[in-house]
């Protein structure tokens, strides 16, 4: 009885710790006063002004476009790569997997700095393209790591059976293997999207002067004081993500139930 109370209280405290800044952020997006400390009354002003704020809208646009593009491209390259790696010999597999781990293990700042060095070395102007290439680079390893376990679970004879029945290798891949490894691909794509949206360090080093994503915008604002409009935007994004996660959660719960029936 006492143990249960302590557990609940502890869980409660940890969640307070995790959500305190988020609640603050959301609360201050409705704050009439510009200052961070004072509460000046309820307002929707920042939400209205957000609609007309070109720099913030621009940063939001770049964040979303980069996240979507890098998630899609990284998922395609990563999935194809995982199939290849899965079929490699012991030594080749080991080498490629270790290389694949490098961007995961390397500190963000080293990845960012080394990519910046590369882009400047080959005279690629820092901007949208360099940032996109950097994001794809740090996203692919996570896709590979998400897809590989699914390939290992796959029945090796499935594709062969399909081909015995007259399917071309590509048709067998599309109709037999792809649906089987789909959960891994979706996980990988979601991870890539999340990582890209939240990234600051690598973007900071690889984005040029003209291109700013939300993280960079927040970082450069932090000294002068954050514009409450950013709070409003994050509140909207938070609600969007919450909705998305609830849908995904519901879907997986249904899937799990379906799995039991089988």
């Amino acid at each position: 009885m006492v143990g249960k109370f302590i557990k609940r209280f502890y869980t409660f405290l940890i969640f307070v710790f995790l959500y305190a800044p988020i609640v603050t952020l959301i609360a201050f997006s409705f704050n009439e006063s510009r200052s961070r400390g004072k509460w000046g009354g309820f307002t929707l002003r920042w939400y209205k002004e957000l609609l007309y704020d070109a720099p913030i809208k621009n940063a939001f646009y770049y964040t979303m476009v980069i996240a979507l593009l890098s998630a899609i491209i990284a998922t395609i390259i990563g999935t194809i790569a995982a199939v290849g790696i899965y079929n490699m010999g012991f030594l080749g597999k080991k080498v490629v997997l270790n290389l694949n781990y490098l961007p995961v293990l390397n500190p963000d700042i080293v990845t960012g700095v080394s990519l910046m060095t590369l882009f400047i070395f080959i005279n690629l102007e820092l901007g949208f393209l360099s940032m996109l290439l950097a994001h794809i680079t740090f996203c692919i390893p996570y896709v590979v790591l998400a897809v590989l376990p699914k390939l290992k679970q796959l029945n090796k004879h499935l594709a062969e059976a399909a081909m015995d029945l007259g399917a071309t290798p590509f048709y067998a891949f599309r109709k037999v293997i792809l649906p089987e490894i789909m959960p891994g691909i979706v996980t990988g794509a979601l991870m890539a999207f999340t990582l890209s949206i939240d990234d600051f360090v690598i973007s900071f080093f690889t984005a040029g002067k003209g291109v700013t994503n939300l993280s960079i915008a927040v970082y450069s604002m932090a000294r002068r004081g954050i514009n409450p409009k950013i709070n409003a935007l994050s509140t909207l994004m938070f609600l969007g993500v919450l909705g998305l996660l609830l849908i995904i959660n519901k879907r997986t719960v249904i899937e799990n139930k379906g799995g039991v029936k089988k």
Partner: protein
Amino acid sequence: MRIKQKAAAYPYIGWLLVFIVVPLILVLYFSLTSQGGEFTLENYRRFMEPVYGKVLLRSLNLALISTVFCLILGYPMAMIIARTDISKRNLMVLLFVLPMWMNFLLRTYAWMTLLGKNGVINNILQALNLPALNLLYNNGAVVLGMVYNFLPFMILPIYSVLSKIDNTLIEAARDLGANEVTVFRKVIFPMSLPGVISGITMVFMPAVTTFVIPRLLGGGQYMLIGNLVEQQFTYVYDWNFGSAISIIMMVFILIAMAIMTKYDDQKEEGGLW
């Protein structure tokens, strides 16, 4: 067929070479040359100077403290989640992942609102007629920021290992007369070690190299090794010295990882969560 499938990895291998291997070779090259382009070890020697040694020690120290806090706070939480009914478990895990979907700079920045001189916490203290505290711009604030940002990376791997422990083993230990403490010490904790190890690495590594948290919550007065690298590349434009520090940092972390994974026999699945 088999040979053809293997070829599917080639485009990615090309990508890895261009965007991972070549950049690292470039950084290594810069670290071994002077600004004029001649070969030198001066950049590495310079890092041995006491000023930089202090920065490295401070980074390691703060990261270590944060990791210990994360472990102390995170392990019980992971155990609580692992013992919740399956129906609620997913929701709890989701609640830990959710904050990570909000821009981490904004979340860190929000702590400035909470901790500041006229911040929320001090306002509450004043309302209670208590003296205001200096919460921001010190080591404590930096550690708090690290613990806040990295705690889920400690909880999730430990939880995923704990949730897979076979319950019959725990029952067997109890049947053989072990009390709760012994069961934890002799059965649960040793079996959860792989999760603890990946949790420690996932907290410690980013904590050593972060430059954003000390900049925002430490007010920029406590330079950590990440700040040093950032400064060399974006203000001082001494790429050679910056590259040398990056290489040292990277080697440090890869060695630490190698030691860690040596004790971890379940590294196969990538172990994120």
